[in-house]
């Protein structure tokens, strides 16, 4: 009886797993396979309650990796309070990574980049849009989708140069007079951001 039980489990499991392959995170049906395990486990323990949903059920599935390099890069720029760009097709973006300005073209290798305060420029045809980013992360996926997550992004023409100079001076003063490590770190961050703003305005 035991062997029979294991055999039928085996057959059921093998039937189910035959369809599975190592999934890409860009492949949605694989996500639901993982979620269905969760749903089963949940139903076993809490039969009277509906299982909670997970974020991937609220997301549109991402396109799979194409075999040829696409001609356009799809960019999503998201902020906590707004999605500035979502699904925009562009030619190139230049992101301010901590290692320097990084250009991303369609077909770029998959990358996770940490961003420092600086300018993000979006090139589409002949027009270039520049945003000053406060810092965040940028993900470039293998299917030529670039996600840029930042806390603040303002168009460069909205920055007031006087306030930038004032802020820079103030933070430099604070850095000189800082006593504890925490104060020093905060002042240093302020100096970094303001000098980046300065560079953005001049450059």
């Amino acid at each position, binding site marked *: 009886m*035991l062997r029979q039980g*294991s055999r039928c*489990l*085996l057959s059921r*499991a093998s039937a*189910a*797993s*035959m369809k*599975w392959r*190592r*999934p*890409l*995170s*860009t492949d949605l049906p*694989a*996500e639901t*396979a*993982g*979620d269905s*395990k*969760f749903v*089963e*486990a*949940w139903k076993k*323990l*809490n039969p009277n*309650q*509906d299982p*909670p*949903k*997970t*974020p*991937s059920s*609220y*997301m549109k599935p*991402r396109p799979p990796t194409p075999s040829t390099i696409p001609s356009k890069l799809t960019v*999503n720029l*998201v*902020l*906590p*309070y707004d*999605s500035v760009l*979502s699904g925009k097709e562009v030619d190139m973006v230049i992101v301010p990574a*901590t*290692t320097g300005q*990084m250009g991303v073209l369609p077909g770029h290798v*998959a*990358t*996770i*980049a*940490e*961003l420092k305060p600086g300018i993000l420029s979006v090139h589409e045809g002949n027009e270039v849009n520049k945003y000053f980013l406060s810092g*965040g*992360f940028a*993900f470039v996926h*293998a299917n030529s*989708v670039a*996600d840029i*997550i930042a*806390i603040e992004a303002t168009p460069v023409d909205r920055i007031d140069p006087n306030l930038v100079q004032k802020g820079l001076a103030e933070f430099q003063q604070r850095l000189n007079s800082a006593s504890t490590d925490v104060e020093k770190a905060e002042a240093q961050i302020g100096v970094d951001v303001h000098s980046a703003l300065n560079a953005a305005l001049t450059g």
Partner: protein
Amino acid sequence: MAMAALRREGKRIAVPLISPNPINPLRSTLASSQEQTPFGVRSISTQIVRNRMKSVRNIQKITKAMKMVAASKLRAIQTKAENSRGLWQPFTALLGDTPSKLLIFIVYWVKGNRTHLKAVGSSSQLPHVEKFETSNITSKCYLPLSHSVGPRDYFLFVICGYADVHSLSGAFVAFQLENWSYQCAIICPLGVDVKKNVIVTISSDKGLCGGINSTSVKTSRGLYKLNSGPEKECKYVVLGEKAKAQLVRDSKKNIQLTLTELQKNPLNYTQVAVLADDILKNVEYDALRIVFNKFQSVVSFVPTVSTVLSPEVVEREAEAGGTLGELDSYEIEGGETKSEVLQNLTEFQFSCVMFNAVMENACSEQGARMSAMDSSSRNAGDMLDRLTLTYNRTRQASITTELIEIISGASALEG
């Protein structure tokens, strides 16, 4: 006899009011008003009904006002919540959704002097079956699997007897088998691959918002059950008074941190980032599961759980392959080491996901309060209608009885 008369009186008045809703409190107040007036006086006091009507009318006004307030707050916060929805999508696209990883271990154990651990794989990818024999069962039996254990693989072993599963890490499964005899199979579903789960439950501080806080707490409890087991621990971090009140009752020792009064100032990212920092500093975790109510529409709120894995687990999973297997193929720019960047990523992901969760929960709270107050004011309106009918009948009945007395007295005098 007096009781019978009172009962008859009560019935005559209450008969036209027979409705599906029980109005026993009303009848009892009327009966008591009759008892309070001295026997013989026929005018039933309408004062009591009038008082009740006044209080119900006030309640109706209050609940209507609360509904308006909730509606305006909802309008303000709804746009912000919808704008913040794009924030967590890149993280889910990169790291996937990992509610749980299920690995079923069933070990075959034949009685006798030798133990056969037969790994029966279910996926076509399993290259070959490992057979492991040992004569000494009290020693630890290591079963090296040539195929690395990933989230989509089932390795079926039937455990007959007692087995202590010592560790599950990548390609190794270690068992210590204690008992010889052939017993019935115990199927141990080893739930998740994370040992320390922290469930962050988000709820409201104020009440009168329908059932959303209870659903959040029920979901958290369900997750707790799912993630508890040997060698696994599960803790709560509670945001909001209402969930704290409910969880403190039975899981007091599992609550690590509680935070209240989130909505004193309007929600913004900085506040949530500080909150997230606080939680990350004080809590040891392998996986953070954030439970909140997602705002789908003004009348529908869906309990949702979002998972954030710790950087060590992410690295481990990326190496082991599976859902996060492609993470290894991503180049890391910036930072000195990969683990530093992964740590920053995790913290950033947590704060973003928390921000969205807190906003969605706030929206759900206002929406739920709106519908609760709406049904409350409608109910108060119904009660008021019924009370008005009772009031009119009481008034007319007393007028009628007075007239009857006068007329019968007059006719007695004449004739």
